[in-house]
């Protein structure tokens, strides 16, 4: 008889096997982080309930069991290895095992070369991810599974990590997409994550076995895997216990052979308290806490009794990502009544109910104005005919001024977003929003409380007097799961974890979002708000971390709504368009999902129709489906560049061969050069098609590094497309160096751009099937040498080239590149002049040449145009600047242009710079700080937008609107 125990991140699984390896006992339980206690309890049960178990050898597996096994000298079998042992014995004909756990995801390839893949530092695509998504939809994971069966459409949800997925799902919820569809889409996101992140190019074929909790309990998830993989996998009996069984099978492998009785004794004596890294406690005494409470009690807005009030009132609505907040404010700024509630995915009925109730209870109050802010601004505005909309950042500023007129820093931590802004001279001077990676915040605390089996309010309270809060550092909160896991392993108790999480939320905000180095970076007068600060532990942690007392208004969670109400009052003309009681009584809201056919994007639209013909369309990437009347003409240099690149189609009549160029990364800039070069030599140049989701998925299987930037990942699809096209050769050379534009100290490409051809060559198996793949190292920075070298290189692949001919082609290539740059610059000049004539703001949207790809920039260029600005590119202005001193090593050609562009706009009042940064771009960790400091040195606002696979433009919109609002405020001030 032997015993296997699998200590997972959230559950304990145990099996007892008899001498024939038959299961005689099994158990599956959540351990709520009480690992030691739960284990001991479970093992004691075994001793009493299973005859003969007491002297059986116990073997442990599972990531959370490693430390325990080591400390107690109990045999340990690594969990993937355990799975493999069990599968080999029980289902020997298995080719591939897919095992999802609470926080782990694994693929085991058993046929051919044995390989195991586990998720690394990313918790995406696991049970925790599914739980988080269920929480977001306010349903249980089981409901999620049930709902998924009724789906009609699958939405694209970024699958890399929970945070990304959240920011994709939230707009879907807000736009009224069906929950059934969202549920199924979540499962498909998990599948994508597994295939892209783990399989990394190795196909999943043959007999596939599904193991682990999520795949056992959710047939919807299994369906999604089956459909995506095009096969029918099996979920065997005891699919939850394979690791535990593997541990039992492996019991005789190790040197430690502890029997159950011995093991229980040792584990019971296993104490780990105090071994993890800890921070000082939040409060040392009750007295300290009392002082703290008293100090914060005075920062408040008065509540007036609405029964006794008559006169005008102003309604402010904050339709946030997870909650909806409404405030009715009196003429004096008192709150008459308010609402703060989770939006359950749809804010509309909640607001309707509030308004109906308000009209019914207080007939003597007249609503004289209304305004809405937040993620759901558009839908709410259309649903209720709200007077005005205001960008969230401004709403919060208006509210904060009420509490602290001299406020110079506001930090708002909500359910999903961190928003911070610096105020200088009464205007918003700088805005920090959490980028996709470091969000999490409030809803994270909530999910975590849930995972530990504690109510959120209770969870937060537990942390207040924790003696040794866990030091979890500052990092993306999704990744923090594993830090917590480690702390649990080291014996941290729930109170210390709670306090530690509160502290880490604060550190995250300070060091990842604001990137502050000290309290002076923030300001002297700090107002904190947002639902997360209602949590006293977070507030205290914040004050301790910055070493300064701050103001937390008593309506910390209502500030957005309150600010909207103030705005409503300030802009009121005495009457409101808001739906009255009669209209609300007949209120109707229908949601239809449809695919837009107005352009090749084929956006999935959610069409919300309200009574009286009011309508809101969500999900669109451009204004075509919503535009009324004639199309507006935009001045967008991104679009111009794209169409210019599309014009390189000329080909010789009888081409000597067809050469394919993958349109990604630096090819976006090199196309004119290579097109002229090869056409002159008599080749037909074939470019890969425009990027889209499909093209990306086509190449996804061959991406070896899941953390490389999205533009690089896209390249795999382009290569596949060229192979499908049947070109004779694919030309994608390695280029350590770029052209020397004399703006920097050197003229490198970044390592990814420089050497991605090596990755393609090593990872795309189809390249070995006949097509020539030309990935040689070339240097265009030395034109004379280039002509000689390229002749040698091409002669390896093609016969009959002539040196002179090649030289002439080189000249043509350099000339065409110059001509291309010139055209871009001239068009840029034209747009700038036009903007100045029409008094339009100019945005220099700065990135890399490949950010012109709409699949990469997600139409941000257009979005800026929709805000009424003219968009030009960094390379349209960078040539105006001479080389100047920067505080970094200025050694990459593309990045030198960024610095130059930033420098150029410094003294141009009508120009602002927005920097596009691809997620995962290491070089931009250096450039962003430098561009910021160049801009801020010239008194400009710096705006950075991080882009990845995500297609959600909501957050981007806030960013841009805030920028324009801040610019307007600056302008107003300059005029005054």
């Amino acid at each position, binding site marked *: 008889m032997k015993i296997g125990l699998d200590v997972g991140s959230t559950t304990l699984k145990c099996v007892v096997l008899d001498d024939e390896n038959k299961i005689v006992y099994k158990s599956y339980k959540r351990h709520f982080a009480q690992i030691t206690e739960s284990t001991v309890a479970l093992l004691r049960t075994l001793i009493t309930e299973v005859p003969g178990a007491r002297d059986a050898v116990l073997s442990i597996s599972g990531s959370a069991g490693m430390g325990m096994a080591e400390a107690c000298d109990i045999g340990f079998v690594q969990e993937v290895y355990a799975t493999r042992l069990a599968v080999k014995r029980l289902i020997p004909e298995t080719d591939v095992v897919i095992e999802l756990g609470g926080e782990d995801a694994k693929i085991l390839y058993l046929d051919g070369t044995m390989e195991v893949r586990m998720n690394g530092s990313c918790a995406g695509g696991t049970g925790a991810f599914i739980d988080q998504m269920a929480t977001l939809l306010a349903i249980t994971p089981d409901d999620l599974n049930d709902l998924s069966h009724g789906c009609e459409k699958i939405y694209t949800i970024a699958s890399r990590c929970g945070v990304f997925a959240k920011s994709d799902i939230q707009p879907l919820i807000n736009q009224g997409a069906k929950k059934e569809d969202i549920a199924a889409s979540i499962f498909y996101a998990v599948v994508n994550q597994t295939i892209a992140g783990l399989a990394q190019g190795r196909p999943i074929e043959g007999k596939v076995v599904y193991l682990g909790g999520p795949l056992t309990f959710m047939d919807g998830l299994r369906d999604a895997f089956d459909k995506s993989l095009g096969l029918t996998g099996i979920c065997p009996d005891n699919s939850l216990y394979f690791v535990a069984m593997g541990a039992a099978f492996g019991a005789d492998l190790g040197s430690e052979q502890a029997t159950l009785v011995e093991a229980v004794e040792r584990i019971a004596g296993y104490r780990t308290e105090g071994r993890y890294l800890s921070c000082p406690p939040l409060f040392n005494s009750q007295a300290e806490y009392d002082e703290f409470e008293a100090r914060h009690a005075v920062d408040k807005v008065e509540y007036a009794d609405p029964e006794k009030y008559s006169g005008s009132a102003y309604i402010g609505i904050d339709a946030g990502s997870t909650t909806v907040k409404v405030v009715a404010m009196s003429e004096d700024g008192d709150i008459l009544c308010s609402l703060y509630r989770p939006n359950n995915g749809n804010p509309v009925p909640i607001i309707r109910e509030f308004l109906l109730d308000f009209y019914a209870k207080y007939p003597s109050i007249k609503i004289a104005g209304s305004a809405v802010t937040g993620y759901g601004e558009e839908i709410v505005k259309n649903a209720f005919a709200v007077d005005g909309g205001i960008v969230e950042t401004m709403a919060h500023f208006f509210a904060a001024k009420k509490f602290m007129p001299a406020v110079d820093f506001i930090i708002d931590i909500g359910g999903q977003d961190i928003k911070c802004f610096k105020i200088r001279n009464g205007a918003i001077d700088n805005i920090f929003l959490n980028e996709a990676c470091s969000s999490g915040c409030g809803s994270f605390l909530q999910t975590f409380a849930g995972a530990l089996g504690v109510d959120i309010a209770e969870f937060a309270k537990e942390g207040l007097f924790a003696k040794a809060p866990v030091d979890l550092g500052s990092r993306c909160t999704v990744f923090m799961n594993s830090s917590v896991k480690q702390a649990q*392993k080291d014996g941290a108790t729930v109170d210390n974890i709670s306090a530690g999480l509160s502290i880490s939320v604060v550190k995250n905000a300070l060091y990842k979002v604001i990137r502050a180095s000290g309290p002076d970076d923030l300001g002297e007068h700090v107002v904190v708000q947002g639902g997360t600060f209602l949590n006293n532990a977070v507030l205290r942690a914040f004050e301790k971390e910055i070493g300064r007392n701050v103001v937390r208004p008593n309506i910390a969670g209502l500030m957005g709504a309150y600010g909207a109400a103030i705005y409503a009052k300030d802009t009121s003309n005495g009457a409101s368009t808001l739906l009255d009681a009669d209209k609300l009584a007949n209120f109707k809201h229908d949601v239809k999902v449809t695919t837009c056919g107005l352009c090749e994007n084929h956006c999935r639209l959610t069409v919300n129709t309200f009574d009286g013909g009011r309508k809101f369309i969500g999900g669109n990437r451009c204004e075509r489906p919503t535009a009324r009347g004639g199309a507006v003409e935009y001045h967008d240099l991104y679009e111009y560049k794209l169409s210019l690149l599309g014009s390189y189609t000329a080909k010789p009549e009888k081409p000597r061969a067809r050469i394919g160029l993958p349109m990604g990364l630096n090819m976006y800039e090199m196309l004119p050069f290579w097109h002229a070069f090869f056409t002159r030599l008599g080749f037909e140049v074939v470019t890969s098609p425009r990027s889209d989701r499909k093209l990306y998925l086509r190449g996804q299987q061959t991406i070896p590094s899941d953390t490389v930037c999205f533009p690089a990942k896209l390249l795999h699809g382009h290569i596949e497309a060229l192979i499908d096209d049947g070109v004779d050769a694919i030309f994608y050379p390695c280029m350590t160096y770029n052209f020397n534009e004399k703006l920097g100290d050197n003229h490198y490409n970044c390592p990814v751009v420089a050497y991605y051809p090596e990755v393609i060559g090593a990872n795309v198996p189809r390249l070995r099937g006949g097509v020539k793949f030309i990935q040689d190292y070339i240097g265009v920075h030395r034109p004379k040498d280039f002509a000689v070298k390229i002749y040698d290189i091409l002669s390896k692949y093609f016969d009959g080239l002539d040196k002179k001919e090649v030289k002439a082609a080189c000249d043509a290539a350099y000339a065409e590149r110059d001509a291309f740059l010139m055209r871009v610059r001239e068009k840029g000049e034209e747009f700038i002049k036009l903007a100045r004539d029409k008094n339009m703001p100019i945005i220099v949207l700065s990135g890399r040449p490949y950010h012109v790809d709409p699949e990469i920039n997600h139409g941000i260029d257009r979005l800026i145009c929709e805000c009424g600005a003219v968009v030009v590119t960094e390379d349209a202005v960078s040539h105006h600047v001479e080389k100047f001193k920067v505080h970094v090593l200025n050694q990459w050609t593309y990045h030198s242009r960024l610095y130059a562009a930033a420098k150029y706009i410094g003294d141009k009042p009508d120009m602002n710079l927005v920097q596009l940064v691809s997620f995962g771009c290491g070089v931009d960790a250096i450039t962003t700080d430098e561009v910021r400091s160049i801009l801020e040195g010239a008194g400009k606002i710096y705006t950075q937008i991080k882009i990845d696979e995500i297609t959600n433009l909501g957050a981007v919109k806030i960013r841009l609107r805030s920028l324009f609002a801040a610019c307007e405020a600056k302008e107003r001030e300059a005029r005054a």
Partner: protein
Amino acid sequence: MDRVEFTKEMRKDYTILVPNMLSNHFKLLIKVFANAGYNVELLKNEGRSVVECGLKYVHNDTCYPALLVIGQMIDALQSGKYDLHKVALIITQTGGGCRASNYIHLLRKALKKAGLEYIPVISLNLSGLEKNSGFSLTLGLIRRLIAAMAYGDLLMLLANQVRPYETNKGAADALVDKWADTLVAEFDNGKGFAKSVMRSYMERITADFAAVPLDRTRKCVKVGIVGEIYVKFSSLANNHLEEFLASEGCEVNVPGLMSFILFKVDNRMEDIKLYGGSKAKFAVCKALFDYLSGIEEIMIETVRAKSSFNPPTAYSHLRELIYGIEGYGCKMGEGWLLTAEMLELIEGGYGNIVCAQPFGCLPNHIVGKGMIRRLRELHPESNIVPIDYDPGATRVNQENRIKLMLSVAREKMVSDDTAGTQRAKKDDKEPALV
């Protein structure tokens, strides 16, 4: 912000703080600087406060090595141990196309953020990127640094092959200490740098290690470590990876610094070959390359002649190994060398490999993770695990993944053994057939 120069005056009484990467190598390197008239001190501070300092003063998306190196320096400066007006910092700058060349600027930005911008920072580079009147890399100094580095490599190589098998625990480390001390004393006397002297020292060192009593019956999993140079070598960065592997009963093989330096010099020649360039520059690089190769040769010959240990792999062989797999132009970061080292390890019987990389390391997307698929195709027996290191990556996750790699390695070791025994049995029978 103008750069604060390290002046001749400063050279007299300033202490130059040096970040740590490889304790034994650096112990010797430090000595060389000290003997050249610089007051140098190797930083030894570790732990969470270093990481916290890095997070606080360096852009969090920057590579982990930058964060640690800068964190270590600022943490030291803020410790109160130093007169802040009598201290300088030194950091390397390769001039390559990866972010590492920017560390010095990130350090200056960090100093400014910490209100310490008056502290001079010396760039240690061979590209003429930044100059300081009080600090110069003379040819003599370079020669001595190379010697120190070569000794460091040799000690590391030998100790790694002795440690897991030594009958008396601690014997290898004792020898490392003994020799490091001996060499330091010799350096004080200005000795130990000439090639002929190096040969004799290396022979004595090798002989010493060869004399350590070993228990060869111990079965150790042979594991190789490659990776981004700082994370590969620095225990601060890789969570004491070598110690962990040792505790798991492994023999560790960490390819040394010499090939990296040769690689960096070779890159300059390769650039000229690939893209054209100055012949004079080529000749200078060639001379340096030949000098380094000469020392490398001494090491290889010595180990081969004086012991049964595995000698270091010759750089020229690494070049052969990578041919047809990656281009010689792939030079940023560790470039093709990282992949070549994996091939070297596989060839040498260290096919269980930890590829240590900072999270999001750009060159490693290409030469690390990007090449594993290819290596597995070529060498199905290889067992490579890429491990990401960053401020938040937890040890439990990293160790768990390494343990998996080790489980597979052990299984293979057992099956190889069985196969070996069977083969041996077959061999027994063969004479009978003849």
